């Protein structure tokens, strides 16, 4: 990866397709903050926009790609990691970033997530977790907290939640991290670490869906929702491995796990090289 430390001021408009504005995210949605953090990280690492490839799925998170001035691929529901696997293997010169959501990555696309973690192909996966299917009107997702009201859990969610980071860690992801949107500079630093990581980096961004999920559950306006994320955060866990079960009100943040091992693309290319010139 081309890493040229930049001290220039970050101007987000340099990385946006301004002709696409206004964007379609709701007021108060945390996804925009995540996008800012990503682009800030891209800027600070000096990544060439021409080499940046953003692969996103379906849902609110999936629409982000269209606003970024890069090579952007808005693919099918749950499949961005599969598409990105092909792209990253075919084009190791690209900086591949996958943007997915809690439904996209943990429900319909769960199989691709665990195998992307296992394979450890170099790319950065941002899972924007807002606890709900926002695009389709607010149905329950695999990360919806217990008892929360959604349009398909009219009496409150009865199902237990997924801890995406523990899943990614168990499946073998090279780097696993989590951050809330409130701490944008910290989130930016975590994404930088992911982008610079020579393997599969999985980062869960705790986002918020104010308009649909927040309203339905009376969680207040966007600042209130975001501040409540901070209140339940555990700064003391920053940089350490998760050692407690995930609870919706206890979110360990920062780099949660590292599993340094060979990057798959390089492993395959070395294998292929050993076969070349030996064709009968």
């Amino acid at each position, binding site marked *: 990866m081309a890493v040229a430390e930049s001290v220039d001021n970050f101007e987000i408009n340099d990385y946006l*397709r301004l002709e*696409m504005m206004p964007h379609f995210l709701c007021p108060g949605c945390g996804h925009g903050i995540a996008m800012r953090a990503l682009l800030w990280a891209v800027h600070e690492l000096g990544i060439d*926009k*021409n*080499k940046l*490839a953003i*692969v996103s799925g379906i849902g609110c998170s999936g629409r982000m*790609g*269209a606003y970024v*001035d*890069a*090579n*952007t*691929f*808005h*693919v*099918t529901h749950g*499949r961005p990691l*599969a*598409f*990105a*696997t*092909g*792209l*990253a*293997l*075919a*084009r190791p*010169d*690209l900086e591949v970033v996958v943007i997915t959501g809690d439904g996209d990555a943990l429900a319909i696309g769960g*199989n*691709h997530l*665990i*195998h992307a973690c296992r394979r450890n192909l170099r790319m950065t996966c941002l899972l924007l977790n807002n606890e709900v299917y926002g695009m389709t009107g607010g149905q329950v997702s695999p990360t919806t907290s217990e008892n929360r009201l959604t349009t398909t859990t009219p009496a409150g969610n009865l199902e237990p939640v997924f801890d995406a980071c523990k899943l990614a860690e168990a499946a073998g992801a090279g780097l696993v991290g989590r951050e809330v949107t409130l701490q944008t500079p910290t989130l930016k630093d975590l994404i930088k670490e992911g982008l610079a990581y020579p393997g599969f980096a999985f980062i869960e961004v705790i986002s918020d869906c104010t308009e649909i999920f927040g309203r339905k559950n009376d969680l207040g306006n966007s600042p209130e929702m975001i501040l409540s994320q901070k209140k339940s955060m555990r700064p003391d866990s920053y940089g350490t491995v998760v050692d407690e079960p995930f609870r919706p009100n206890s979110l360990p943040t920062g780099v949660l796990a590292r599993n340094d091992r060979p990057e798959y693309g390089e492993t*395959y290319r070395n*294998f*292929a090289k050993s*076969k*070349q010139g*030996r*064709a*009968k």
Partner: protein
Amino acid sequence: MSNRTLPVNIQGNHACALGAVAAGCRFYAGYPITPSSEVAERMSAELPKVGGIFIQMEDEIGSMGAIIGASMGGSKVMTATSGPGFSLKQENIGYAAMTETPCVVVNVMRGGPSTGMPTRPAQGDVMQARWGTHGDHPAIVLVPSSVKEVFDETVRAFNLAETLRTPVILLIDEVVGHLVETIALPKASELDLVDRKWADGPKKGFQPFAVTDDMVPPMPRPGDGYRAHFTGLTHDESGFPTQKPEKVAQAVGRILDKLERHRDLIESYEALQTDDAELLVVAYGITGRSARKAVAMARDKGLKAGLLRPITLWPFPEAALKEATKNARHVLVPEMNAGQLCYEVERICGTERIARLNRFDGEAISPAHILEKIEELA
């Protein structure tokens, strides 16, 4: 490939793999499924030798996604599967059609529906190959009937995918996939290979889905500076989503139209003794070979039989069928299914003259079986 000019004994599935590599395929993603797995196995051995990439994905859907991703990155790509896997791939086949991403999808047909008969032959996916993914979409479907034709049609599938920026489906029936025949593999220099048009003009104001004369806009390659957007949402020339009726009509209309305009390039068939045929057999794949034999046997008996064997199933070679049925009193459509292509034949020839011969019990249709039906009709 250059030193592989001696005749080789090879099965259809391996010929497909070698045809793909010869055509320039450098990325294959697949998932094990009978009776197509030999394609993946051969690709896993061949691709690394030529600097290509093979990956066994976690599922059929992921395989389809991975080849589209690699194609967007610039590779010529292929995947192979069979009935149940073909069903799973359908959504992403539609995505490839919508985003105009070249790819070759091989379906080695087995008995269905559902898990069906994994090791038995069938031709039950003819309509799925045409209409399997949702919405109005273009479909190119090729159906070889011999091991040599598998090689040739695989090469042609890549050329069509690259020329027209669209998915191409290669339907092979289980018999042909596992049939071992002696074929001479062509030298690399004997093959006419096509690479897709890559965008190389000005970056500013570039329209990745512009309406060009040939209806196939040049594709922007990531890293070349175009920073284009691809989406399965209906998009205008810019690549960004639109719901404006006139733009939607233009966008969907163009991806359908680009096939219509290139029918000459796409359509392929074998016409045998059709000039004076009073009874025309329309058959494809392994059934086409049985029909060829049956027609020869009928001629020996003095019956004016002929054969039209479509190698391109979709878009169907309509003009060729009209020409071949000029003098025909009967049109017999033997198929290893409950009747699928016969609907297209009926659409073109009318229902009056059509006779069907269907078998979906896991057995191929024999020449004798077709001859019997020819004699019955004559």
